[in-house]
């Protein structure tokens, strides 16, 4: 970390800063406090971590917060440095961001758009946060992203999987590292074809809200393209806990695959009901009946227990990725090791995306040489990086969505321990999940102009 080497970028940056410093000795101090919202002082910079600490996604929120704390530690030069050692950019050296010590404030989104915005506004107005990150539901992410656009700070989205976050609700000040429903579907479809063939009839149960709809739309389009038929799509209320009434008609509908577009507790309950109804042993149309869960997480797998075995789905990242799939996913082990040492168990994909987002923001500020949101947006747009656990990744300029490999997983038949519940089936390469920014499922959005605030 302490080796001093001259790079072209380093020389240019030092030169530019030095000349600016010489030319504007009097204006620089005044400039530092104007020009954009919450310009940080000389000693510290405040980041706002807005996660659900109560409500249905509190588990995810707690894990995200752990990851944020770890990221701040590493930025401030404490701990073992984690992914800073594997990240393809070497600008971050453990001295905070641009020489300022990183401080953070936390808030509770309660998984409600209103509460999340109130919490984010207090971080911006009261604590002077220059960047907001976190969130583990698409509604909250879209709401907070809109707020950050208006207030003129950067939003680094956490766990949000709906197409709309970087689709019709995309904003210039908002960035998403996590994958989305379209990518899930594009990655899953070929695997489903290999597993179950091209002649299948799918029955969808869909959580009746924004994320459920985009997930269902995406997976139906992808499976129909390879020859499957969609028999029926039934919307289920989000607050539903007993899905028996929705499962009962599935077998007599002529379907031979059940797609559960559910997340969190919903998915745990609907899958349990489906298994209780004997769907996994059932035969339909002369084939074995199958169940698919497009969006997976370790926490859900733990909740579903035995029932998850053998059921395919997709993930943004998995902690075993580097061990099983090789060098391409370097960074994974570095992160798992420092997370595990600090907390005693492997991180979830929500923790991973939040950790990476924090480092990416810090790196973008360092490369831009300024905390000004517009400079950060410019530094992140079209940014290509590696060594963050997902292989080579691109932050696309057109919609501020990260493009990287998608992990297709399956519930493990014989788990060795309570953290080893999913096995990686294959990793779908980036090219297969890439789409155009104006793809019909993402159309209607407008990034707008970056907003530096005041």
């Amino acid at each position: 970390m302490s080796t001093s080497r001259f790079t072209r970028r380093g020389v240019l940056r030092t030169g530019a800063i030095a000349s600016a410093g010489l030319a504007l000795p009097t204006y620089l101090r005044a400039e530092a406090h104007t020009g954009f919202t919450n310009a940080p002082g000389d000693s510290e910079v405040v980041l706002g971590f807005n996660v659900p600490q109560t409500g249905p996604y509190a588990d995810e929120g707690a894990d995200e917060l752990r990851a944020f704390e770890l990221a701040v530690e590493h930025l401030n030069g404490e701990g073992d440095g984690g992914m800073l050692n594997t990240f393809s950019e070497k600008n971050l050296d453990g001295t905070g961001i641009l020489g300022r010590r990183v401080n953070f404030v936390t808030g509770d989104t309660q998984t409600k758009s209103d509460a999340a915005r109130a919490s984010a506004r207090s971080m911006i107005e009261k604590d002077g946060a220059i960047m907001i990150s976190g969130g583990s539901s698409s509604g909250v992410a879209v709401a907070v992203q809109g707020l950050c656009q208006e207030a003129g700070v950067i939003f680094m989205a956490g766990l949000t999987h709906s197409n709309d976050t970087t689709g019709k609700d995309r904003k210039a000040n908002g960035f998403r590292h996590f994958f989305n429903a379209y990518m899930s579907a594009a990655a899953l479809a070929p695997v489903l074809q290999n597993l179950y063939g091209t002649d299948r009839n799918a029955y969808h149960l869909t959580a009746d809200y924004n994320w459920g709809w985009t997930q269902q739309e995406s997976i139906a389009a992808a499976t129909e393209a390879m020859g499957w038929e969609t028999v029926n799509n039934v919307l289920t209320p989000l607050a539903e806990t007993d899905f028996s009434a929705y499962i009962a008609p599935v077998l007599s509908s002529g379907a031979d695959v059940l797609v559960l577009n559910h997340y969190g507790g919903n998915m745990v309950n609907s899958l349990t009901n489906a298994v209780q109804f004997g769907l996994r042993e059932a035969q339909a149309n002369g084939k074995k009946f199958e169940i698919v869960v497009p969006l997976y997480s370790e926490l859900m797998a733990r909740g579903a227990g035995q029932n998850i075995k053998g059921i395919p789905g997709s993930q943004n990242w998995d902690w075993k990725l580097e061990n099983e799939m090789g060098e391409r996913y370097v960074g994974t082990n570095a992160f798992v090791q420092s997370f595990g040492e600090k907390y005693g168990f492997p991180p979830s994909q929500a923790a991973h995306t939040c950790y990476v987002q924090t480092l990416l923001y810090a790196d973008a500020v360092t490369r831009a040489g300024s905390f000004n949101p517009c400079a950060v947006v410019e530094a992140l747009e079209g940014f290509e990086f590696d060594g963050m656990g997902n292989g080579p990744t691109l932050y696309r300029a057109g919609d501020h969505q990260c493009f990287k490999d998608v992990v297709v997983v399956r519930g493990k038949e014989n788990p060795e321990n309570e953290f080893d519940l999913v096995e990686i089936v294959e990793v779908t390469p980036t090219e297969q999940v890439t789409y155009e920014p104006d793809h019909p499922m993402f159309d209607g959005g407008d990034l707008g102009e970056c907003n530096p605030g005041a």
Partner: protein
Amino acid sequence: MRGLERRDVMLLVIVAVMTLFAPIILNPFPANSAMAQFNAGYPDLMQRFVIFGIFAIGFNILFGLTGYLSFGHAAFLGVGSYSAVWMFKLLGFNIIPAILLSVVVAGLFSVVIGYISLRRSGIYFSILTLAFAQMSFALAYSVLGNPALINLTNGETGLQVYPSDPQVLHGASAPNVTNLFGLEMRQTCEVKLGGTASGLSGCDTHMLPGAFGETFWAFDFNAGYYVCAVLMLIVFYLSIRIFRSPFGMMLRAVKSNQQRLNYTGLNPRPYTLAAFVISGMYAGLAGGLMASMDPLAGAERMQWTASGEVVLMTILGGAGTLIGPVLGAGFIKYFENIFSKINDGVLHSWFAFMPEGLENLFVTLLHPFVGKGWHLTLGILFMLVVIFLPGGLVEGGQRIGRFAFRRRNRKGGEAEAEAARKQPAE
């Protein structure tokens, strides 16, 4: 003053002074001290104080006067918010049409719900209103938010303004944020007191804790807050007039004994319906203001927890009293926004002066009550208030006042407290 007794004028003046100087009163601690954590004088929270104050004042007109406990008032708040955002989408970012429409729509909505629900009283009325509110929530959350059908609410994501919206009245030079004839609601002027360079630090910049080495106070004067505050004073004055009017007396009669009222040949339903609609319009105004301060309307605003919150605010502050609901609203919002942000890191910095073991002990002891545990602290305080101060915070204030002045206020205050103690109808 118009139609008010001296005592009410005093109350109104006190409330007016408190609201106008709230940015100073709520920021008693220097901006870069450890106690700054407890400062509540930032625009978002101050706006919430007065907006929920309006909501609770309106709720109190129904619950405090007639004793009808509505468990579905959040529905009107939500409807008001959605109407306001639709005005932003269709007409433009001026808040006047938005607020007007939100009050009107909430009023109409409450006529419908009130007409049906008020056929029953007591617990049945509460359940009916709760059912209507949950229906509205479900409609807003999924049925009316599905892009495949008619998309009125944008579902879970929440209704917001997009650049592609028509905004027919939006002038070329008009600001692209909610405004009152050009005055932006998010405009905040900060005044710095103490330390070097005291004075107005500007209306565009925001100073940071830690930006300067010395002790100083920072006060935020926010345009949106003052718009809300003026509206709150107007509706507070209206509520005093209602409390003191013959109409208010009829509502109290409904609360104390509806059967007797029936026997005297009076039909109470028009009075209760009027009270219901008025409080619905108050809720609509609050919803419209919420959307005006922050142009996004989410369905959670209509959920039963939001309805329950206003009940808590009113009871905590003192049902049936004039100032109680405002105090209760401030109390709950303070806990929600300030206590929920105290995390372990903050606790450690407070007890850093202690030896390691003792520090960790204190942090462990306090941990369940702050951060995500703010509900727990609030719940304990709520229980304490209900058990020891059945009249709410107002009764607490009265007791302190009596203790200080060593005399009993036998005149108006007693009668009001008496009415507040009466059980709801039935």
